[in-house]
């Protein structure tokens, strides 16, 4: 059952992204930035977790989840360690994702070569 929710919510988020691309012609960098900010806002206002409860991957896999982790990390660290948490929390929570993206990009960058689009 939760697969259906994951599919529906995930699909909906992606469709909103596509709608933004069609309507405003914005580039993928701006799309990603927008959705990260949406994720940060959702987490900051405490709306993310209730959605995550039933949508699961539907909201954690889109980049919205990345934004939510940033905010969640910062909030948690601030509560635990005070001021310095605002600076350490966000990156700590997302370190695995960023490190993986950079690491694999480096690895596959060494192995493969860019090909002309068909």
């Amino acid at each position, binding site marked *: 059952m*939760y697969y259906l929710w994951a599919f529906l919510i995930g699909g909906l988020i992606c*469709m909103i992204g596509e709608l933004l691309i069609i309507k405003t012609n914005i580039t993928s960098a*701006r799309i990603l*930035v927008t959705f990260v900010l949406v994720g940060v806002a959702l987490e900051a206002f405490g709306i993310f977790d209730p959605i995550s409860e039933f949508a*699961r991957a539907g909201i954690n896999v889109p980049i919205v989840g990345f934004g939510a982790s940033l905010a969640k990390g910062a909030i948690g660290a*601030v509560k635990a360690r005070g001021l310095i948490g605002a600076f350490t929390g966000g990156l700590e929570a997302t370190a695995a994702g960023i490190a993986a993206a950079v690491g694999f990009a*480096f690895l596959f960058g060494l192995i493969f070569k860019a090909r002309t689009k068909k």
Partner: protein
Amino acid sequence: MDDKKRNEAYNNYVKAKIPKTRPWPSLFNSFWIGGVICCLGQGINDLIMLAFPNMAEQTAWTYTLVALIFLASFLTGIGVYDRIGKFAGGGSIVPITGFSNSITSPALEFKNEGIIYGMCVKMFTIAGPVIVIGIIASILVGLVYLFI
């Protein structure tokens, strides 16, 4: 007619002239591919939880994202991801796989300019703003929570 008015009139004319594409097919494609990627993530997550029942939920999600990032990075390397993207648009940009693609694709592209000045420098040409804006937003949120 002065230049400014002429340009304005021309821009309006061009806007009206641009062919209107029907948005529904691409919206539909982005919907179902985005949904499938999310379900894939859910599947990986469930498998991890099944294999390691004692793992914390948060850790399992982190592994899931790493797996998706690996997959997207690999598909980018073998030249498949850009074809999915041409078809799916937002469906393959918005998931975390799109983030991975946006880091791997410049790494491949600028390899010819060398490891340091090509690959490493250009890796964040697209994803850089995502990380910068994300970090700044998280700092702000942290500061706000410090005072409430």
